[in-house]
């Protein structure tokens, strides 16, 4: 069995049966006549003289192997070539870079060389220009320096001397050059130079000294600085410090003045940090100079002022304006004090604020005094007001009392003639009555003579009849009775008025508490007030039987008059056509007698009711009311009689006043009190 045939060669393919005896198997195969044994890996395990097969079998592998070898060789050759190429390129690149660098360096060197030359030339030009400018500047500088600049030798000979404007010389400064200090300066000053100039040469240091010199009758202060420029020459700079000296003295004096000032002085920077405080500050606040400096004025903050207060302060002073006001500050020990402060910005010559200056004055005592004075002033004003009120009330009462006395006086004066007029009138009535009887008798006789026609008397009787008619005798006789009646009524009314006036004024009472009948007081008051009432209101009185009380009748009547007249005015103010009504009634209980006076007037608004008993409060037009009537009434009833005045009112409907007076003022003791007051 063969598996394939190649070029007439049978090829059998079999697996190895015994791997371990591979050589033995191959020999057995060869013994069996197999031309060749080819292993599973393609290798010829054994072969006879059959070169074609071997060649065949080997040729494929050989071709592959050869190709691989060739490829590998080519690849290696290519690799080597690439390596060589890389090396050559690297070498060339390095060579090019090196050369480029060399060229660049050469180029740079060349440029530098060129530029250096130019720069050197430019530098030289600049240096020359700079030198020229420096010389110019130095000259300007030297000219501008207000000091004298001189050059001196070690033996104080002046080699050069710069004349300076506004510098007062002892002699003509321009002629100093070439002279020694002894020749141009007073001996005392020359001696100072003789001492210090050689010192500058020996020490090689700047020697500074001051001296005084009399120049044209004026003492000037000079400051000199000497510095050796070489072994032979020294620069001498002389400055006139007279003004500085004076300013310094002024500053010193000012500083002393500020420090010893009785006012607290604080200087801060623009951030508000304290940089200076005077002795008074330490004395007032308790903070020493060292403690205060570096702090802000907030260390004095008492908490009394609001942030807005401080904000406004800062706004004012940072705007460049002065702030004036009062501070409440706190001392180091916590005690507060008041100060009157003035804070001003301090500006430099450019107008820029550099510091703030605060000058404060301790006004705590003044403040307390002012507070005390204010309190006292208020108290005095209150006392004055009360005095004025009392005075006004007294004046009013005095006026009322005067009017009462006047009324009483008038009443008394009227009462006397009224007495004999009334008496005569009664007598007259009696006489007329008798005359009438006689006239009637004569009339009877006259009638009889006429009726009986007695000749001797008839004519005379006729004449009498005529005369009687002419004289209207009968009319007169008929009118006599009403005349007498009206006259009697008139006299009675006059008598009542006089009596009422006397009762109203109670002048005989002299402010004493005596028995008083309130009803009688009302009646007499109504008579006195009749003229105020009769055209505006009717009066209705319902006066109950009430006991008499102890009172100052004249004063109670004054109260009644005030309230009744006010009622009439309130009704009049209502301005209605019809008459209003004033109702007066009295009553009593076991403690008090009461009198209510009700009117139908305008009423009193709620908002002013609390004020109507206050002095000088009035709703009447100016000049028509003093505002004292009700306040006096209140004083009389409440304070003097321990009673009360009550008020009810409705706007548009009317007002009710109720006067309440104690029945037994003696038993309770108020009378004693009142009498005590009166004494």
């Amino acid at each position, binding site marked *: 069995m063969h598996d394939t045939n190649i070029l007439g060669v049978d090829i059998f393919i079999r697996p190895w049966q015994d791997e371990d005896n591979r050589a033995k198997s191959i020999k057995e195969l060869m013994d069996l006549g197999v031309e060749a044994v080819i292993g599973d*890996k*393609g290798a010829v395990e054994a072969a006879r003289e059959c070169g074609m097969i071997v060649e065949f079998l080997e*040729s494929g*592998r050989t071709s*592959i192997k*050869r190709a*691989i070898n060739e*490829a590998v060789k080519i690849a290696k050759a*290519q690799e080597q070539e690439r390596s060589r190429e890389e090396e050559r390129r690297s070498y060339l690149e390095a060579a090019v870079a090196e050369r480029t660098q060399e060229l660049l360096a050469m180029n740079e060197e060349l440029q530098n060389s060129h530029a250096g030359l130019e720069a050197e030339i430019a530098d030289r030009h600049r240096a020359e220009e700079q030198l020229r400018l420096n010389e110019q500047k130095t000259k300007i500088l030297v000219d501008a320096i207000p000091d004298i600049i001189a050059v001196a030798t070690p033996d104080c000979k002046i080699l050069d001397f710069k004349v300076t404007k506004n510098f007062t010389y002892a002699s003509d400064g321009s002629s100093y050059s070439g002279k020694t200090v002894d020749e141009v300066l007073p001996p005392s000053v020359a001696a100072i130079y003789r001492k210090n100039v050689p010192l500058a040469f020996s020490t090689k240091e700047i020697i500074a000294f001051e001296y005084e010199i009399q120049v044209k009758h004026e003492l000037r202060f000079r400051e000199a600085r000497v510095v050796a420029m070489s072994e032979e020459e020294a620069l001498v700079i002389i400055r006139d410090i007279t003004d500085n000296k004076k300013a310094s003295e002024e500053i010193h004096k000012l500083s002393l003045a500020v420090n010893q000032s009785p006012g607290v002085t604080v200087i801060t920077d623009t951030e508000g940090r304290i940089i200076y405080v005077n002795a008074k500050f330490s004395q007032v606040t308790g903070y020493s100079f060292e403690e205060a400096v570096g702090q802000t004025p907030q260390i004095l903050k008492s908490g009394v002022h609001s942030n807005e207060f401080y904000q406004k302060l800062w706004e004012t002073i940072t705007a460049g304006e002065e702030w004036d006001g009062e501070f409440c500050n706190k001392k180091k020990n916590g005690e507060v004090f008041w100060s009157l402060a003035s804070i001003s910005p301090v500006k430099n010559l450019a107008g820029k604020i550099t510091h703030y200056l605060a000058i404060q004055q301790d006004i705590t005592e003044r403040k307390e005094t002012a507070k005390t004075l204010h309190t006292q002033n208020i108290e005095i004003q209150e006392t004055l007001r009360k005095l004025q009120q009392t005075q006004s009330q007294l004046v009013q009462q005095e006026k009322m009392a005067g009017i009462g006395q006047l009324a009483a006086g008038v009443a008394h004066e009227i009462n006397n003639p009224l007495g004999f007029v009334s008496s005569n009138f009664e007598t007259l009535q009696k006489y007329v009555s008798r005359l009438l009887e006689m006239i009637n008798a004569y009339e009877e006789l006259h009638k009889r003579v006429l009726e009986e026609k007695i000749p001797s008397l008839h004519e005379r009787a006729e004449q009498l009849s005529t005369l009687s008619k002419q004289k209207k005798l009968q009319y007169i006789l008929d009118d006599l009775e009403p005349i007498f009646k009206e006259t009697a009524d008139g006299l009675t009314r006059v008598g009542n008025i006089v009596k009422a006036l006397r009762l109203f004024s109670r002048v005989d009472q002299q402010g004493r508490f005596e028995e008083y009948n309130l009803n009688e007081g009302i009646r007499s008051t109504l008579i006195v007030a009749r003229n105020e009432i009769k055209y505006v209101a009717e009066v209705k009185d319902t006066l109950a039987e009430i006991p008499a009380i102890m009172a100052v009748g004249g004063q109670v009547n004054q109260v009644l008059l005030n309230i009744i007249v006010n009622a009439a005015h309130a009704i009049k103010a209502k301005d209605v056509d019809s008459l209003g009504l004033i109702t007066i009634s009295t009553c009593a209980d076991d403690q008090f007698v009461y009198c209510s006076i009700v009117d139908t007037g305008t009423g009193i608004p709620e908002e002013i009711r609390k004020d109507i008993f206050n002095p000088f409060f009035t709703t009447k037009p100016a000049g028509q009311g003093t505002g004292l009537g009700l306040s006096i009434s209140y004083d009389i009833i409440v304070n003097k009689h321990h009673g009360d005045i009550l008020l009810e009112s409705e706007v548009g409907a009317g007002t009710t006043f109720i006067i309440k007076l104690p029945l037994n003022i003696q038993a309770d003791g108020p009378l004693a009190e009142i009498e005590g007051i009166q004494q």
Partner: protein
Amino acid sequence: MESVLFIAPSQTIADTAGKIIAEMGLSLPVEVGTNQQALKIAVSYPDISVIISRGGTAEDLEELPGKTIVGISHIYRRYLTPC
């Protein structure tokens, strides 16, 4: 030797080539492919500069620029003519 690629036209040759390469102590990539397929394989190895192949496939690979093609001159299959 990563610069040599073996593109075998058959798996048998690829196996044989693999064995030979191993025997030679080399380490070359071996791929199986013919003609256009072989071209794609070759392109997928851009770092390879030498390609081993045979016959028409080798001729096709000659078109690749920059690549050296080494052809297998004889191979036993040429002799494998059916009886």
